[in-house]
């Protein structure tokens, strides 16, 4: 399994260390970290005001406002809290396809993203899912845990069926603390995606759907009389693939990913798509920064 663990050179790791996660919502952490929390508290940074209520600490009444407006307002302070990064990795059979395989690409990407979090002393947890969560690592913090995390990723294998709904449901039940959730999958068999997205949002997670497709998924290099076998369900269909059908399929793929992107946008959830043909370093160091996932 060790051999399956992603290998990064030192230069790349230094570049990763210069990156940090860019969240779009304030997240509540358990310990002080480098991320700003939505939990109001007694830190030094004023976050907001609200009308005074009976029982509020009189020390936090803003008397300047009272003198100007003749109304009592209580000062609210933003707490500086650590970020919890959850990586949900699709380990179903469809991820085994592609050149390089989607699961290898995902493994390297997850390692890089986790390393960014660990390097910034964020809490990082990795879970794999198929028809539900199948394996979850403990939350880790600090660079020292990178080896544990890589070992965890090295044990990842792509088999079985996917059920994103079940996976999200399991994750929602197990993660009590909101954080940044990055779901890495090909999202080709998503079921009720709206329900999945609403589940994540209801948990107040800052979620990102990172769709990883193989070039074969987007533009299959196929022709002639074929029996197409579904990698997960083992069902097959008989097609005689010609140019017209191939175009129709590619159009269907585009429609599918566009629909996924629209759903994410409407749910306030981030979405990014990549192909395994995109060089890994370019994805992390360029595209994800451009897509405002990293800064």
């Amino acid at each position, binding site marked *: 399994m060790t051999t399956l663990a992603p290998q990064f050179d030192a230069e790349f790791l230094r570049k990763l260390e210069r990156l940090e996660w860019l969240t779009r919502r304030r997240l509540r952490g358990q310990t002080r970290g480098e991320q700003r929390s939505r939990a109001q508290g007694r830190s030094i940074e004023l976050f907001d005001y609200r009308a005074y209520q009976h029982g509020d600490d009189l020390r936090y009444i803003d008397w300047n406002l009272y003198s100007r407006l003749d109304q009592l307002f209580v000062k609210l302070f933003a707490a500086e809290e650590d970020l919890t990064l959850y990586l949900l990795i699709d380990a179903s059979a*469809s991820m085994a*396809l*592609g050149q390089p395989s*989607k699961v290898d690409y995902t493994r390297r990407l997850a390692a890089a993203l986790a390393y960014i979090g660990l390097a910034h002393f964020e809490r990082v947890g990795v879970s794999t899912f198929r028809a539900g969560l199948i394996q979850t690592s403990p939350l880790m913090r600090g660079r020292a845990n990178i080896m544990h995390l890589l070992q965890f990723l090295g044990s990842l294998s792509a088999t079985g069926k996917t059920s994103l709904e079940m996976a999200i449901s399991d994750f929602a039940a197990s993660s009590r603390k909101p954080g940044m959730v990055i779901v890495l999958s*090909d999202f*080709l*068999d998503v079921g009720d995606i709206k329900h999945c997205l609403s589940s994540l949002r209801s948990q107040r997670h800052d979620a990102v759907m990172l769709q990883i497709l*193989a070039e*074969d*998924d987007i533009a*299959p290099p*196929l022709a*002639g*009389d*074929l*029996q*197409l*076998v*579904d*990698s*997960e*369900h083992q*069902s*097959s*269909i*008989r*097609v*005689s*693939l*010609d140019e*017209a*059908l191939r175009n*129709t*399929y590619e*159009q*269907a*793929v585009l429609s*599918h990913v566009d629909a996924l992107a629209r759903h994410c946008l409407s749910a306030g959830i981030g979405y990014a798509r990549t192909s395994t043909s995109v060089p890994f370093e370019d994805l992390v160091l360029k595209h994800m920064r451009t897509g405002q996932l990293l800064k």
Partner: protein
Amino acid sequence: MIELVTPLALVALLAIPIILFLYSLRPRRQRVVQSSNQLWREALAQRRRGLGLRQILSNLSLLLLLLSAGALALSLSAPQWLTQGVDASDTVVIIDVSASMQTKHGDSTRFDAALRQARLLIDAKPSGARMLLIESARQARAKTAFEDNKDVLIKALETIRVTDEAGVPALALALGATLLAGADDTQIHFLTDAAFASTQLPFVPNLKLHVHGNSDTRNVAVTRFAVRADPASPETYQALIRVHNYTREPLKLPLQLTGSGASLWRGQLQVEAHSSEAVVVPFHSLGGIELQVNIDYADDLQLDNSAYAVLSAPPPIHVGMYSAGNFYLESVLDALPQLGHTRLTADEFRKSRLASSDFDVIILDRLAALELPPGRFLLIDTVATNLPVELNSERSARTVSALGESALVSGLQLTGLAIPDTATLHHNRNQDELVQNLIWTSAGPVAVSLINGESRVLLIAFDPAQTDWPKRAAFPLFIERALTWLSGHDPEIDDTTLEAGLSYRVTTPTQNSRIAVHRPDGSNVEIRAVDGKAVVQTTDKTGIYGLSIDNGFRSFAVNLVDAVESNIASQPVVANTSEHQAKSDGTIAQLLWPILAALGLALLLLEWTMRAVGRGGA
């Protein structure tokens, strides 16, 4: 509408699952694992929506094979495209009304079906198009002129009746072609059962033959019925009956010969399949009877199971008898119904000159005649000088020892008859005379018959009154036979029988006689003679026809007796017509099997070509 003639042939559709099985054995497609087939299914569904029927072509090779098998199986079941219609501007519709059109199919006949189709053709006639109706039997008769009025055509159609006549379709076709000659856009529809030899059809352009019939039929028929007098025996006749078996199996057919309703003979005739047998039936009659032969067998056409003949009564024999008195002979002459006799005394015989033209037969009873004129004579115990027969002068008692071979004495019980006083007869034959010895004694013949040209003489060398012959039944029989033979009057046979559809010529006693024709179906037709002659033309039904002429009555028989017409199986249609198999409901059936067979083979060829060039359809 499409109908299958042999639906059992659809069993050939079992080839379809075989094709499917064989098709499943073809090389399998390349298996390719995909991340998910969901998007492929969407793409296929989207493509099906976009392509419509081309979805069916997703497996064109298999589809072509299945279509080919289906077309070939359908062609085996002989499908027919049922249509009806008239598209020419001038149309002749010929309806076969010959006897075979009476063949039954279920509850209706071929003729009924032809009428229904004719009605449909009239109904389908475009406005302005003209149509002419012809009925075809032994003669061709136009029932209308060229008419565009459907009502007129329908009324004419309602007057058309099927006949018992043998058909001569060539006449009707020739008439139709003649009437259409010179016109453009014409068509002849011949509604028939095709129960005739194909050679009977002449070449007629634009002929459409609508066949209301089938080849699987059962029929037997009297194909000949002739009656003749037995030349060897007066009052005995022979009926020649020929029966044909048109079925595929040998039959033992019950036959009955009746005379004016009374049974004359019953018997059975074994007839092999598709062959005929004849039987000669002897019977006795004095004439004046209506004969009918009947085959008691239920078949598709009953009409030809009977045949008819009329044995008219012979004219009365006028006998002049010169006698000194003969009780027994006069009693016999009085008793015979067909005789009219005049008794003349010996004095009258001596005073008058013998004139044979006044009587059919002259009897000379023991009165010697010096010389006989030409005529018919019965000489009893006397001779004439100009006869080649002489009486032997030695008379004595004799006993009849034998009878000759003549029909005049055939079957008579005369052997041992004692004759107390008789001479014997001696004759000198020459080439011009025919002499037969009738009654023999040990001393020689005592009765002879002689024919010399138109003259006939019968001589008896003794006086029967002196024997007990008159007390025997043989005496009146002999006298009746003798007078009938001498008179030469036989019942009329040949002139009283004809085939249906032919004309019967009648000679009447007066110039302008009114003749009532009593037809077999009970209807009466009146005709008038011109110059003592008349022609009965309405002989379309078989049976006995009666003729009431002035105060007299005579009859004649009309028969089918046609071996070709009785062969009611539809024959193959000749090549110079466009064949349409007509249905009982009057529609026209266009045979589709050649088209379907060609289509099936073409589809096979297309499938093979596609495979050869490696083009499997999506």
